[in-house]
């Protein structure tokens, strides 16, 4: 395959970009990475740099949302004083 004539990525490129992206998202979500994953990110620093701006800005996993407690279900008899 003549790469100059065919623009696009090889499967390996795709794989690496995707892995960089997933690892960056994991870090953003607070998860740990293995030493080899950290090394992977260091190796492909260029890819990391360009991917950083593509990450979603919102928090992806903050756990369950707060929920109100409904107390006003019934009236209690009120002793007149």
């Amino acid at each position: 395959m003549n790469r100059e004539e065919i623009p696009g990525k090889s499967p390996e490129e795709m794989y690496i970009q995707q892995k960089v992206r997933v690892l960056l998202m994991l870090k953003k979500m607070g998860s740990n990475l293995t030493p080899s994953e950290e090394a992977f990110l260091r190796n492909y620093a260029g890819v990391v740099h360009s991917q950083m701006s593509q990450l979603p800005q919102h928090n992806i996993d903050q756990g369950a949302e707060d929920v109100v407690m409904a107390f006003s279900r019934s009236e209690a008899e009120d002793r007149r004083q």
Partner: protein
Amino acid sequence: MCSSVLVESDGRMKVEEWQHSYHGDSGIQSGANTVREDDGDYGTSKYTTVTTTTVSSEYPEGTRQPSCAGNLDAQYTLTRAQRMLKVAIIHLINYQDDAELATRAVPELTKLLNDEDQVVVSKAALIVNQLTRKEASRRVLMQSPQVVAAVVRAMQNTSDMETARATASILHNLSHQREGLLAIFKSGGIPALVRMLSSPMESVLFYAITTLHNLLLHQEGAKMAVRLADGLQRMVPLLKKSNPKFLAITTDCLQLLSYGNQESKLIILANNGPEGLVHIMRNYNYEKLLWTTSRVLKVLSVCPSNKPAIVEAGGMQALGKHLTGSSQRLMQNCLWTLRNLSDAATKQEGMDGLLQVLVGLLSSDDVNMLTCATGILSNLTCNNAYNKTLVTQGNGVEALIHAVLRAGEKEDVTEPAVCALRHLTSRQQQAETAQHAVRMHYGVPAIVKLLNQPYYWPVIKAVVGLIRNLALCPENQTPLRDAGAIPRLVNLLLKAHQDAQKRGSSNQQTYQDGVRMEEIVEGCTGALHIMARDPVNRGEIANMQTIPLFVQLLYSPVDNVKRVAAGILCELALDKQSADLIDKEGASSPLMELLHSSNEGIATYAAAVLFRISEDKNTDYKKRVSVELTHSLFRHDPAAWERVSSAAPCWPPQLDVAYGGYPGDMGMDGMMEPEMLPEEYQPAYDRHQYADQY
């Protein structure tokens, strides 16, 4: 000394009683009104005539009495007895006189009250009013339906202020006894009195509201009659008056009418009742008024329509003003009302003072106070970062932990207290501070202990959520482990999962104590997920043979369960041994499916697990993962590819277009459908043309 007296059949007994015990003021000397008793019962006995003789001295007439001191004392005692007897007799005579007079006058007075001449009516009303001030005559009047009806008629037809005042006063006087209340009720007095609530005369207003109050308190059927006469619509505007005692009676009327009656509550709302009531709480100091008003607000606070109106009117702040006073009953009413309102007040501003007071109340030993304070704090910190920060900075964490420790098994306190701690430990600027504070105030063991049996599921749910947040702080991981959180969470997860599975086939929701078991599964897995960030915890979790269960949870129909299951597998897969075990459990298949989830968290965790378990796998497998990712997690993100490909280092050309499950003649570029690309990224070639060359 002889006296002829007119006594009731039990009159002799009454006289004797008075002789022995009568020390009060009959009014003969002072001119004071007769004392009216609410439940006085003099009966309707016949009158009889008796002649009695009373000896005033022990010595016969004409004999000289000894002049020593003992004789003087005796004389004094006898004189005093005579005096008391005289008073009693006069009292009886007056009573009888009043009764007789009234009885004779009733027909004539009735006629005069019905006269066409308003001057006549006015004078008659004055006379009747005088008569109602004495007990005997009042009794006679209330036993005459004709005269009461005439009074009612005169009151509602007159345009003369004095007549209105006198007739209102008559009804007011009659309303102090049940017979009188009944007479008013039967004579159609309620609609007439309700009309009087629009009177410009303060005295008429006072008589009308007080009479209605007595009717509402003691007359059966009065509430319905007042409602039918549009009494609420007339009473609510009276909240603008400024006399505290008048307002106290008015608010009490509103409470009597609205308790347990939804329609009445809506009428109060429609007439701006919440604003008027909140205004009173904000601006008055009279304790009884504040108490009666707080009772109305408490009744309205369970109404879904009134609740937001009270909150919007500033009800939370106004009620909060009265939590530090000396009136216990007022404080408690305000707390219950605030608790009822709190779920509608999560977005309210200006809660600073209230929150501070509530944190202070957490040191109380009164269980009702604790129940209310924790409940209000839990709701006011719900999804409100500002309030969370305020409470954290105000030592709320420490106070809540102490409340949990003191509450023991009182779930009405522990559940909201733990919920409040859960809120404080996430989604706010001071979340980390709160997470540290729980540990520093020795809260971790107490919180983990709440996971013990007997299980009260709402508390369990709150606690696992709190543990999950606490585990976000690395310094908390060891204390949580030392307190035994992991085995407790795993056991709860197993139990909840089994319960959910049992009912799963019948498609029923599994609720216990109002909590779905799927929520417990999600909560426990979520807590274990975060705890697994610690390597020692990770090993302990894996050693409990939990991986098969987590893989099974990937098939859950509940997105949240899938997310936390994929999350914990992602953490466990950091260890090679666990990664192999995850792969052996057949996790690849469900994980590939999860790549297509619309939930970013699920897809990301699934991708991460696949990357980790595919480390040792062949290139085919890795490409398949990549292709799946392209069609799932990154399907809407083509710009990223083009932008970064130029930044990537040069790859060795190892194109291999034929791999399992995909057509051999399809190049990699064909994996992206043209319509998925933005216009500027349309391929400039025909993919089939080039593929044929290889």
